[in-house]
């Protein structure tokens, strides 16, 4: 079941990239791309591939779409926040590394969480040890792990938990 899901996802991913690359579409090119993507997806690959952690139920897919918008909003807001700090004459920063805890168990979930934290300006994932994530924060608002977890991870985690546990 897990490998079937991985093969379907890698077929869709490969074919999607091909379709986007050959943008003004014609049916011959699309069919040739589908054949090659099927062949590649049928090759044997590692069981440990993190693609298998993705859930495909209707609720997970709806959450995936919602997560896209939540992440875009967080990205824009934190970009404006860091832009404000850069332009402020007194440079209001108080950098530090805080420890936050994550409830996510799967490798894909933790990968997505760490990458989301790094992509939003103002926070960078420095290290990950088990369920502890060490985050460099440009303005430490709360040094204690629970408060920092709520501020940095809280918004992303409840969506990622539904998408990939």
């Amino acid at each position, binding site marked *: 079941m897990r490998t079937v899901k991985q093969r379907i996802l890698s077929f869709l991913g490969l074919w999607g990239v091909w379709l986007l*690359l050959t943008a003004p579409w014609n049916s011959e090119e699309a069919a040739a791309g589908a054949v090659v993507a099927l062949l590649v997806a049928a090759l044997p690959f590692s069981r440990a591939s993190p693609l298998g952690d993705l859930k495909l139920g209707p609720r997970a897919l709806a959450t995936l779409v919602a997560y896209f918008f939540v992440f875009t909003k967080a990205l824009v807001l934190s970009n404006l926040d860091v832009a404000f700090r*850069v332009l402020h004459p007194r440079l209001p920063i108080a*950098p530090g590394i805080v420890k936050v805890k994550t409830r996510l168990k799967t490798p894909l979930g933790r990968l997505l969480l760490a990458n989301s934290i790094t992509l*939003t300006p103002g926070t960078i994932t*420095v290290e990950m040890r088990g369920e502890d994530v060490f985050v460099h924060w440009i303005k430490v608002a709360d040094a204690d792990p629970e408060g920092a977890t709520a501020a940095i991870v809280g918004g992303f985690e409840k969506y990622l938990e539904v998408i990939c546990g």
Partner: protein
Amino acid sequence: MNEIVGAFVSLAGSLFFLLSAVGLLRMPDAFNRMQAGTKATTLGSILFLLGIGIMKPDWLGRMVILIVFIVLTNPVSSNALARAAHAHRKRIGARLEPDALAAEDGGKEAGHAG
């Protein structure tokens, strides 16, 4: 019409590139320079590429692929840089309060930490 909208979106993207260049000059240490630099690679390049895609709709698919690749690969290099900077934090004069990672390492390696 498309051309004008796309040009303004690209302009907004290049504004973020400018802001992060200012940030690179003003920030005091490697970590904070990375924070300012993240702005250029995220919203800066995303808006810039989207603007090109809006100007030339035939290229929109290719621009989306570029955005996806940037979003997937940028955090990996940022993470490697941040770990390297933390390993050399004393030599680059980074001011970190609190430093939970050093506290965790200090607890375990108190015996041979110089």
